[in-house]
């Protein structure tokens, strides 16, 4: 019983918060502002609790597995959700349905937690659905906007399609091996054509969720239509969680198929980086821009995954941590500007530095980190991914990845140039950033600068293995 509580600690905490919010919703006693503050407090407690009483072990046979590394991965996601609640406070305060938004978000988070911990294809499928369906509702949360509904519709259709493919893959895999347990499966894999086909279907489902090229087409529209709080959740938390599961599935379950997935990863990583970068070049809307840049970032994550060893896991977890801070900072600034002035285009950012130096510097830090320029943490994150990818890969793979860094620098510099250099008759007016938002941005900024130079973060992740 005790183990039942401690091993599933993260899940219980999230469930408790969801129930609390449900009761609050029934009570309708609190105003949005104080309610948001309460939720932020709960999420902070939830994040901190992630560092205590951590154990390793299985539950329900081998259906649920947790280890220190998995708990840390969950903590990263908890942190991201906490930061979103801080950064998007301006928008959250205005929504009519604040508790519902968090209930949906936390349900999705709960699904992701179960997905990360799943030791069985059925639990995995269940958790994946739990992590997906609330996302579509969240994407639809700008109730007055048609784009928001359009995005949600695209999201739900493509998710349903990928779920179908996933189920098909699972059933074929079950037919070929006779088991759905992750621990029992590896010895039974012998690369027979049926198994390879079912693996490809499973891979496709992951590719949908991670928006790996050519399954990326839903991303930009959904990102653009959704409110920024939902977009940042989609691009950071959802991507991070699926990346964690992806790496566990490949390394633990499909280890005997390493040759197959290695080739697939290399080819798709190149396609994802190149196409994500090329499409990002011409975007005007900052959310679409960040959508395509996040596709390119996923390509880099795949470079790290291709390592196939502990360095791969460490570098991916480290990169996701860095990515949480960098991308959320960028979305945070975009959210502040969009809420106060309604402007979402890169051209509207011209002359921002004159009026809002603080926001400009945070945005610059975030973009430099995404581009992988030192002294930001993104530099270390990207280099570790490339180092991990370089262990097995030939020079041209790393070269292509490195060249993609130049292309990405070009479009990140476009935003920097608009903010710092271009002149504008009507720049965004001076914005009084709310204290909580400022706190969130400062946390992100500190994270971007410090995680790289404080090497114990990396050492800690490494020690979790």
């Amino acid at each position, binding site marked *: 019983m005790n183990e039942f509580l401690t091993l599933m600690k993260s899940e219980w905490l999230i469930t408790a918060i969801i129930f609390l919010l449900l009761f609050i919703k029934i009570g309708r006693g609190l105003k949005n502002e104080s309610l948001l503050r309460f939720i932020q407090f709960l999420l902070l407690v939830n994040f901190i609790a992630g560092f205590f009483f951590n154990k390793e072990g299985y539950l329900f046979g081998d259906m649920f597995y947790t280890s220190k590394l998995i708990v840390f991965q969950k903590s990263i996601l908890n942190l991201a959700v906490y930061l979103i609640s801080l950064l998007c406070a301006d928008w959250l305060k205005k929504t009519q349905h604040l508790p519902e938004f968090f209930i949906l978000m936390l349900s999705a988070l709960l699904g992701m937690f179960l997905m990360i911990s799943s030791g069985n294809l059925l639990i995995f499928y269940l958790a994946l659905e739990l992590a997906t369906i609330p996302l579509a509702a969240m994407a639809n949360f700008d109730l007055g906007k048609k784009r928001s509904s359009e995005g949600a519709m695209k999201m739900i259709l493509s998710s349903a399609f990928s779920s179908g493919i996933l189920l098909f893959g699972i059933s074929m895999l079950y037919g070929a091996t006779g088991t759905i347990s992750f621990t029992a499966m590896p010895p039974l894999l012998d690369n027979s054509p049926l198994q390879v086909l079912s693996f490809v279907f499973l891979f496709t489902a992951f590719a949908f969720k991670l928006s790996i090229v050519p399954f990326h087409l839903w991303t930009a529209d959904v990102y653009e239509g959704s409110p920024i709080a939902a977009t940042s959740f989609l691009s950071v938390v959802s991507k991070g969680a699926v990346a964690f599961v992806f790496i566990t599935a490949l390394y633990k379950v499909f280890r005997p198929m390493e040759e197959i997935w290695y080739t697939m990863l290399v080819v798709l990583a190149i396609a994802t980086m190149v196409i994500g970068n090329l499409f990002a070049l011409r975007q005007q809307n900052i959310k679409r821009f960040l959508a395509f840049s996040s596709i390119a970032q996923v390509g880099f994550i795949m470079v790290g995954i291709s390592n196939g060893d502990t360095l791969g896991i460490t570098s991916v977890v480290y990169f996701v941590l860095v990515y949480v801070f960098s991308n959320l900072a960028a979305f945070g600034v975009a959210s502040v500007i969009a809420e106060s002035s309604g402007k979402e285009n890169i051209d509207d950012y011209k002359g921002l530095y004159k009026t809002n130096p603080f926001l400009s510097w945070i945005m610059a830090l975030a973009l430099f980190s995404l581009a992988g320029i*030192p002294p930001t943490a993104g530099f270390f994150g990207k280099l570790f991914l490339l180092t991990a990818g370089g262990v097995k890969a030939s020079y041209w793979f*790393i070269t292509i990845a*490195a060249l993609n*860094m130049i292309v990405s620098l070009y479009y990140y510099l476009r935003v920097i*140039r608009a903010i*710092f250099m271009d002149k504008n008759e009507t720049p965004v007016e001076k914005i009084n950033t709310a204290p909580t938002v400022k706190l969130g941005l400062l946390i992100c900024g500190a994270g971007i600068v410090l995680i790289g130079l404080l*090497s114990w973060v990396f*050492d800690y992740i*490494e020690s979790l293995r």
Partner: protein
Amino acid sequence: MNLLLLLGAPFLTAVAVLLSRNKQQVKWISLFGALVQLGLSFVLLFVYQEQRNAGNTAQMLFEQNQPLFRSLDIHFHFGVDGISVSMILLTSFVLVAGVLVSWNIEKMTKEFYFLLILLALGAYGFFISLNLFILFFFLEVSVIPKYLLIGIWGSGKKEYSANKLALMLMGGSALILVGMLGLYFTAGRSFDILTLSKTTIAGSTQNILFPLLFIGFGVFTALFPLHTWVPDGHSSAPTAGSMFLAGISMKLGGYGCLRVATYLLPEGAKEYANIIIVLSAIAILYGAFATMMQKDLKYINAYSSVSHVGFSLLGIGMLTSTAITGALLQMVSHGLMTALFFAVIGMIYDRTHTRMVNEMGGLMRVLPFITSVFFIVGLCSLGLPGLSGFVAEMTVFIGSWQVDDTFHRVATIAAAMSIVVTAVYILRAIGNTAMGPVKNENYLHFKDASWNERWAAILLVAGIVAIGITPEWLNELLRPAAEEIMNKVGGN
């Protein structure tokens, strides 16, 4: 001496600049910080020479090793040899002069000085790093300040130049990155330069990695045909920015070509030496002839930089210890000279508001101090004995002449011919601007150099003359390090 002081001083200065209240404070704090760094680098020079005179023959002195990411062999491994010491000295000279020259900058003063000091921080870190990863880190640190300095405070088509510079330098970095990872994996997972220099790497691998690293660093130091960012970047940058770009940033590339590419991959260096020689000879001649056609003073110096930096690469390509010493002398000399050149051009432009040679004239009469400095730096550029340019170029030629086959001889002669062309464009530029009648009546109201400009000029002139008259001290500093590299390469 603790080398971390060299990183701590600029870091504290940068923080103090950020915290300061008004423009006056910013300027004085920056100047104070820059002077402290100059003092530190002199202390480093003396302590270093003392150690060497006391018979300390270790390759690197004042070594420090702090692990950063232990499992990936990324360490803060610092240490200096003669090359690093002279480059650090160069950096601090240019920094002090740059701070003084930018005294009257009005737009976003705080940010300007912050970025300038960040650039210097990157350069110091680069020159003392003995770990490839950290070296690369500091190399990249300097890219963004350059981009912002040009893009925000520059003139002309500044956005285009800033973009071109950032992307080309990032391209170079990408090649270095691949080469660096290649070294890391072939040499048993080590980023440490001293460890790498002791491991033997197969010739075929060296032939793949050497071009990656050499071209990568070559982009930073205007290796032909990847020099195209130089003219645009230098001419669009603000004065202090140009001084840094030409004076220090291009030296980062030269230092990397030598310390990383040539030293760690000697077989590759031998394989490609002839190509380097051809490219640098082309750069020397092409740069010189291109300069003849320029009418803008900044473009004149930018193209002549391509030509002058070509001598460093030529020296490296010759692979004799004398030629490499010459290449290093040329780096230091060109760093001081070109910084002074850009400083003087900036001073003239602040007054005339034009950089076109044919619109000026008779400046000697109205601006005696500035024009005299202009003469000195021009003469240094064309290699007048007694100034640093002569010492450096002569050493390169002597070193090159030691290789006695037709190919090397032809290359040396071709490079030496450029001196004539240099004399033509320098004398013409100086003649047109300084001599003759005063073309514009407004010029008669000009005031000669202010105190800050005077000190900046005096500092750099002192450096040039010190090397020109007593080259032994610098030579003694550089030669053992150059010989160490040549021992690794093999040959004379």
